[in-house]
C-alpha cells in the first residue's frame, strides 16, 4: 500500500516514511489477525456445523485473559509507535537545526508568494529575492522559513518533502525543511481556503550549488 507514496527527497522524510512503514506492518499484522479470527469464527461456528452454543459470559479473569492479553500486546505496540513517532516529530517540528537559507512564505487567496533572504540572510533587505509561485533553494541546504497568511488559513504542502504546515492569519510560524535532490516539485494548499483552493499551486525548484549561485546573482 505504501508504494503509492511519491518519491521522498528530504532528509527528515526518511523518518516519516519509516514511522509510516512501522505502523503499516504492526497494524497490518493486527488487522490480518483480527479479520482472520473473525472470519474463522464465523465459518467454524455457523449453525450448520455447530448447532449448540457454549455458555461463556467472560465473567472470570481467566476467560477475560483471552481479550486482555492481546490488548496488552496492543498497548506494547502503541508504546513502540509513540516512541519512534515522537523522535521523528521532534526532529522536524520541535528542534531547529542550523540553517543556511531563510525565506518568508506567504499564502493568500489563491497563490503562494516567497521572499528569499538572499546572501545576507536577512529578510526585508535590498538583496531579497521575491518570487511568485516558485520557491528556489539549494540542494542539501536547510531552509528556515517564516510562514504567514494574508487572509484565511492555508496549508503549505509539499508531498515529495513529506512536509506540511498550516499558515494561520495573525501568526508567524517558523520551521525548516531541506531537499536532497535537484528538480522541480509540486507545492499545493491542503486547507480549504475558498473557491480557488484547488488552483493554489506553486513549485519548489531545488537547484544545484552552481545554479543556485547563478539564480541569486540574477
Amino acid at each position: 500500500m505504501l508504494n503509492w507514496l511519491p518519491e521522498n527527497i528530504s532528509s527528515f522524510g526518511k523518518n516519516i516514511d519509516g514511522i509510516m512503514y512501522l505502523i503499516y506492518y504492526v497494524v497490518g499484522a493486527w488487522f490480518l489477525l483480527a479479520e482472520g479470527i473473525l472470519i474463522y469464527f464465523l465459518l467454524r461456528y455457523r449453525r450448520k456445523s455447530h448447532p449448540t452454543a457454549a455458555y461463556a459470559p467472560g465473567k472470570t479473569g481467566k476467560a477475560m485473559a483471552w481479550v486482555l492479553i492481546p490488548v496488552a500486546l496492543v498497548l506494547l505496540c502503541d508504546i513502540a509507535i509513540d516512541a519512534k513517532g515522537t523522535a521523528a516529530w521532534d526532529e522536524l517540528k520541535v528542534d531547529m537545526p542550523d540553517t543556511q537559507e531563510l525565506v518568508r512564505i506567504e499564502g493568500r487567496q489563491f497563490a503562494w508568494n516567497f521572499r528569499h533572504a538572499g546572501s545576507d540572510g536577512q529578510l526585508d533587505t535590498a538583496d531579497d529575492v521575491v518570487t511568485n509561485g516558485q520557491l528556489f533553494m539549494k540542494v542539501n541546504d536547510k531552509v528556515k522559513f517564516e510562514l504567514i497568511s494574508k487572509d484565511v488559513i492555508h496549508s503549505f504542502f509539499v508531498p515529495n518533502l513529506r512536509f506540511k504546515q498550516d499558515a494561520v492569519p495573525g501568526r508567524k510560524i517558523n520551521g525548516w525543511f531541506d531537499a536532497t535532490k535537484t528538480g522541480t516539485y509540486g507545492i499545493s494548499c491542503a486547507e480549504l481556503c475558498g473557491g480557488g483552493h484547488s488552483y493554489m499551486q506553486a513549485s519548489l525548484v531545488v537547484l544545484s550549488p552552481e545554479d543556485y549561485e547563478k539564480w541569486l546573482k540574477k
Partner: protein
Amino acid sequence: MAEEMNHAHPGFIGTYIFSRDHKMIGKQYLFTGLFWALAGGFLAYGIRQHLAAPHSPTLGHGVMSPDFYNTVVTMHGTIMVFWVAMPILIGAFGNFLIPLMLGADDMAFPTLNMLSFWTFFLSSVVLLASFFVPGGAAASGWTAYPTLSVQQGVHPINWGQVLWLLAVALEFVSMLLGGVNYITTPLQMRAPGMGLFEMPIFVWMQMAASLIFMLSVGPLVGGAVLMLFDLLFGTGVYVPEKGGDPLLWQHLFWFFGHPEVYVLLLPALGIIGEIIPVFSRKPLFGYKPIIWSTIAAGILGFIVWAHHQFISGLDPKAASVFSITTIIISVPFSIVIFSMIATLWKGSIQFTTAMLFAVGMIAEFIIGGTTGIINGSAAADVYVHDTYYIVGHFHYTLFPTVFYGTFAGLYYWWPKMFGRHLDERLGKIHFWGTTVFFNMTFIPMLLLGLAGHQRRIADPTIFPLLRNVQYLHVIATYGLYGMLAYQLPFCWAFCKGLVGKKDAERNPWRAATLEWLAPSPPGHGNFDKQPEVVAGPYEYSKPEEKEDFIPQWKPQEAL
C-alpha cells in the same frame, strides 16, 4: 391528575404529529433522518461524479464551479454527521428502544422528548432553507474554520453560513433536550429487579453517548454564538486584524468534534452488542469490561482533540502528548471489539441480515480503526493530514458505524417497530452489494491520499502529481454508483415492510431483552402488565436449562 392525561386518546395530531409517545417520536426521527440520508447520498454522488470527470456535467447541475463544489462537500459532511447519523442512531433507535428495554411506559419526560424532535425538525427546515439564500449554502467545510467561514463574500452578509450555524446550533439544542431523557430514563425508570448492570448494553451505550455529547458540545454552542456575532455584526472574535484568533474556533470545534465520533460510534456498538449475542446464542462476552472500557474511552476522548490540529500552528511540543493519548485510546476500543469477536467463539451463528450487518460493521470498522493509527501519530500525520487518506479513514469508521449499524438495527427491530419483517432475501442482496461496493469506493481514497492528494480540491487533474492516479477517482465513483444501486433492494424491502398484515410475533428472534416481551408493535404504554426482571440481559445457552435462553422478564400469564 397525571394518569388521566396519559389515558386520554390524543387524536390524529397528538398521535402522529405532536406525539409525546417515544415510539412515534423515534419513527419521526427515523423518517426525517432517512430523508436526509437521501439528500446526503445525492450530494455524495455530486462529489464523486465531479471528481471523476471535473469538466463534465453532474446530473441536475451542469459542470460544477469550484465554489459550488465546496458547498456540496460542506453540506454532504454536515448533513451526514448531524442530520443522518445523530437522529437515526440516537434519536430513532434511542427513543424507540430505551424505554422498551427498561420495561418503562415512556421516556422520563415525554413533552421534552416531543420538543426535542420538533427542535430538530426546525433545524432541518433552516438547513434546507440555507440552500436557497443569496450566495448559496455554506461552503467552508463541515468544520467551518474561520477566517474563511467569516470572510465577507460578494454579499454583505454570508447568509448561507449564518443559517448553517443556526441550524447546527438548533440541532445541538435538540440533541441536548433528548440527552436529558436518554440519561434520566435509564437512571430512574428500570423495571423492578433491573439493576444498572442488568441493563442491556445498548442502553449503556446510549447513555454514555448522550453524556459524552452533553459534556462536549457546550463550548461549541458558545463558539457558534460568537461566530454568529462575527457574521452578523462584524465583530472579530475569530479575525486576527480585529483582535481575535482563528485557532480558538478549532479548539472549540474539536473539543466537541472528537467526542462526537464516539457519540456516533457507541450507539452503533450498542446495536451490534444486542444482535451478536442473539444470533450466536451466546452471552455478550465481557459485559462489564465493555462498559468500563467505554467509559474509559469516553474520558480519554476528551483529551485527544488536538490531534486534528497537529500542523495547525499549535505548539509542537503539545502534539507529542496528544499523539500519545490518541494512540492509547486504541486500548479500550480493542477491548470492546475483541470482546465482540470473542462472543462469536463457540457460538451457534445464524446469518440473518441483521447479523450480517453486525459482523460486517466489525470487519469494516477494524479497517477504520487500524488506518487511524497513521494519522494519530503526529509524525506520520505531517504527511497524511488533510489528504484523501483522512477522507478514506473517517469514512471507514463512520460508514460502518452509521449505515451498517442502522441497517443491522432496522432488520433486527423492524418487527418490533412495525409489526412486520423486512424481506430477508432482499436484505442479503442489500448487504453483499453494499459491502463490495463500499470497499470499492473507499480503498481508492486511502491510496489517493498516500499518493499526495489533498482534500477538498475541486479539480485534481491540474496537479501533475495527481494526474496518473486520476483513475482511482474513477474507480471510486463507479463504486459509489454500485453502492447507491444496491440501496434499491433496501428501499423495496422498506416499502414492503410498511404495508400489509402485521404478522410478526412478539419475540421472533428468541431474544432475552425486555422489548421482546411487549406486543409487536407495542401499544400506548408499551407493556400489558408491570414487567419484572429476573435475569441478566444475555442468558443464552445456559447449561441445564430447557430453553436455550432465559428471558429477562418474570413469566406473565398469556393474555
